[in-house]
């Protein structure tokens, strides 16, 4: 179990999104919605501290697994992050956190990780797609 008090992000990515924090939270935690911005991958989050967290490839294979460390809808989701397919002992345990800010119709999503920088293009790629999908779903749901 991770002591979140010692969480020291090395990578931080911020994106502002024209959607409510609730919508952003939904996209982070709904597997069906995540597939539409995560290049076909699914995010699976068990909604409680200590619950399981997984990212699955489009074919269903496990990509990343972890544990939910913080669960505070619609504001903060923190998980551990172990990349399954890295050979040998697997990737070092890292931690990722998503903070959703914003009281009104626009949200700021702050994605931080204690993994070394260099994965940041991954974060920007996913989150750029994320904001596009969110806008689309907000529009189609009439909000």
């Amino acid at each position: 179990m991770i002591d979140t008090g010692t969480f020291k992000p090395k990578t931080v990515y911020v994106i502002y999104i024209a959607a409510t924090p609730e919508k952003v939270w939904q996209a982070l935690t709904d597997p069906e919605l995540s597939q539409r911005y995560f290049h076909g991958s699914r995010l699976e989050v068990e909604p409680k501290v200590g619950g399981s967290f997984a990212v699955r490839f489009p074919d269903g294979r496990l990509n990343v697994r972890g544990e939910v460390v913080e669960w505070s809808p619609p504001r903060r989701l923190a998980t551990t992050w172990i990349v399954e397919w890295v050979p040998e002992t697997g990737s070092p345990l890292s931690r990722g956190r998503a903070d959703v800010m914003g009281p009104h119709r626009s949200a700021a999503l702050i994605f931080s990780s204690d993994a070394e920088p260099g994965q940041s293009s991954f974060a920007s790629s996913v989150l750029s797609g994320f904001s596009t999908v969110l806008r689309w779903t907000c529009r189609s749901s009439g909000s």
Partner: protein
Amino acid sequence: MSTSKPKFVYVTYIAAPPERVWDALTKADISEKYWFGYRVAADGKAGDFMTATSPAGKLAHRDPIVESDPPRRLVYGWKPLYKDVPDERPSRVTFELKPFKGQTRLTVIHDEFDEDSKIFGMISKGWPAVLSSLKSFLETGRALDPSWNEEEQKRGAEADA
């Protein structure tokens, strides 16, 4: 090479061709619509100046353009002229635009800061807001509302602390 000098890197993917992203980054009439009212003109050649004017009409920047290769690469200096900004040596902003399938991968690199730069902290909060608004504007025609911006940036800073 010194690693203590801060460097800001931000990547965002925009569903618009590089030419449109370039125009938005360099033409004041477009920047005004998403850059929270600032008119940013950077459509000159290397050796010309980038100028930025605040919504109140005050000159906020007059910095040399170092490189201009439309619609791929733009480099200019960065020395804010507005009040209450620490007097630091000019830093440097680099925009790289890479096309793919009619979309753009935009990378912004802001570096050449003093080691203990205060301005670095300011731009680290500022670019994500400006570039998110740019993305929204080019994709939907609507920029982001700046009214929540300042408060959210403060809260973001606290969350990171």
